[in-house]
Structure formats: structure tokens, C-alpha cells
């Protein structure tokens, strides 16, 4: 029996600039989450961290773009003052026997094309996703959507 998947859980379109957006009380009903972000920020190339369950640490990440590759201790999306978009796959978010792997496609067409992977070194089920960068904002009109994927 097939199951319709990619269920829209929440969408927010910013009516004012904001440095922090949190999707909370995420049910453990699904297997994966997909976070889609499209909009602008107030600082070109500024990273906005993607934090799970309010944990500001315990991450490792790897990135590649057209000119470089590097590792980092934070997982983030790269914003821009012109339109950018990012799709983050949070795999097996509700599993309690795995660290959480995140896969990123991130584009800012007039500057960069990125891919990234992150690992949150916790086996806890994810119940919140925070997109944040202190001192910087995602601008009015930026849309952030969260989808649940059955498995």
C-alpha cells in the first residue's frame, strides 16, 4: 500500500526581518524532514546555523562549492542579499539509534552554488529545528517550510 508523503508541517513567510526562526514540537510521526528556505538576508554570504533541539554544538559538517571544499563544526545555510534558496534533508530525524545526518543544496545564483552535509552527534529524536544567526536577519518575504517524509 502506498503512502502519500512529503507532508507540509509548517510554513512561515516573514512579515518582518528576523534573526531566528524555530520550528518546534515536531512530531516523531515521519522518518525524514525537509526544510526549504527561499528569500534574502541582510548580509551577503552570511551563514545561518541550523540547530536541532536547541543544541548549539555537537555538529560536524562538510561543504563544497565551485571554488572550495572545507569542514566545519557547524552546519548552516548560506544566505545572500539577492534571492537564495536552500533545501536541507534531515535524514532519520525521529530515529533514536542514529546520529542525524543533514544534506544541503544551497544556491545563490549570482554568487555561489553549495552542497553540504552535517551530522548532529546525538541519537535523540529531533523535535525542533532552529535557523538562526545572531546580529543578522532573514528579510521580510523569506519563506521557510518544513515537510515530513514518511518511510
Amino acid at each position, binding site marked *: 500500500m502506498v503512502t502519500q508523503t512529503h507532508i507540509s508541517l509548517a510554513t512561515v513567510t516573514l512579515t518582518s526581518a528576523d534573526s531566528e526562526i524555530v520550528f518546534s514540537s515536531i512530531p516523531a510521526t515521519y522518518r525524514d524532514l525537509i526544510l526549504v528556505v527561499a528569500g534574502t538576508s541582510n548580509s551577503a554570504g552570511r551563514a545561518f546555523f541550523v540547530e536541532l533541539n536547541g543544541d548549539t554544538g555537537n555538529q560536524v559538517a*562538510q561543504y563544497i562549492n565551485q571554488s572550495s*571544499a*572545507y569542514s566545519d563544526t557547524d552546519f548552516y545555510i548560506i544566505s545572500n542579499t539577492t534571492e537564495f534558496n536552500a533545501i536541507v534533508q534531515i535524514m532519520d530525524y525521529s530515529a533514536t539509534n542514529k*546520529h542525524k*545526518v543533514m544534506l544541503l543544496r544551497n544556491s545563490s545564483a549570482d554568487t555561489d552554488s553549495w552542497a553540504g*552535509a*552535517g551530522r548532529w552527534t546525538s541519537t535523540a529524536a529531533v523535535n525542533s529545528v532552529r535557523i538562526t544567526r545572531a546580529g543578522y536577519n532573514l528579510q521580510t518575504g523569506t519563506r521557510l517550510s518544513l515537510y515530513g517524509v514518511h518511510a
Partner: protein
Amino acid sequence: MALSMGLLGGAGFVAPVAVPAFDLLETQVLTGNQSSVNFTGLIAKYASEYQHLQLRSAVRSNRGSTVDSVGLRFNGASSGYAFHVLRGLNTTRTSYNSLSESSLQDNTICGNNGAANNFGAAVTDILDPFSSDKMTTTRCLDGWMDPGENIIAFHSGVYLTTTPVDSINLVSRAGASFVAGSRFSIYGVRGGA
């Protein structure tokens, strides 16, 4: 070419009906070690409804190393594949390809010596697998991170035959087994009405 969304109407026009386009078809979550994972009978079950497939996975093997990779095959064929990979490994960007392989190199995963609870994840699109007039192509985004070694990669692949895909077969390219907790899910994507 403009595609009408049914807003203008007109004689003979039939308004499209919204149909869910992305369905979970099957999932396997391993409860013990397995040397392969197979999805079979795909044509009879899905070809009439879906145009593309997507494979979503989080996988670990028991290879005696920190790392392994998943080999993706179709119809049980152990030859007739080509792939290209663009990869970021720590501070190094690399690209490589093979034009004659025993499987598609689909994604990097954690081996037995990797950090506990660490699984490599991937999202693989399998395009037009049921068509008999084109070769099946794949595209994959995958990531795996272990202390000291971090990978993000794009893979593209082709199954060098127009034979429709009736089975998907996943193996460890190192000849190891996938371990308990490894998860493989396939999804169907409908074509336009």
C-alpha cells in the same frame, strides 16, 4: 511552451485535478546484517502509476574500516554502468568517473570502525526507470562524516541499457554487509497528468 493551469477554460478543456505526486512505496529497515537489499517486481507494482523513483537511505556496513560505499544495481546486472562523482573531502575537491562498472557508486557510508551511531545518508533520484526508449539515469546527493574525514558528494550515473528497471539491488561495494538500523526507502514520483 505554456502549460495551462485550467484557469482560462475553453471548449473541450478539462480542468486538471490535483493528484498527489510523491508516494512512499516501500521501506526496508534492517534488523540484522544483510549482504544486499532488494526491491523487486517494480514494473508490475509501479510502472503504470509512476514515472520516476527516489531512494532515500541511511546506511552503515560492517566493513573493517571507517568507510564503505553503496553499490546500486538494476535488474541484478553486475555490469553495464557508468558514473561521475564530484566530491568534497575535508579541504580537497575531487572528481572522478568510471565508464564501465559493476554497479553505480551511489553513496559513501560508515563502516564498522566509524563512530558509533554514525550512518551515511543519501537521496538518489532514479529517472525514467520504466521507460524502454531511454537509459535509466541517477543523481545522488550524499554525505558522511567521521572524525577526521568528512565527505559531501554529488553522483550521477547511467544504466547502459534501455531495459526497464524491475528491481533495485543495493550492495556494499567492499563486499561487506549492511548492519541493523540501515534504512532504505523508495518513493514514486508521478509524471504530469
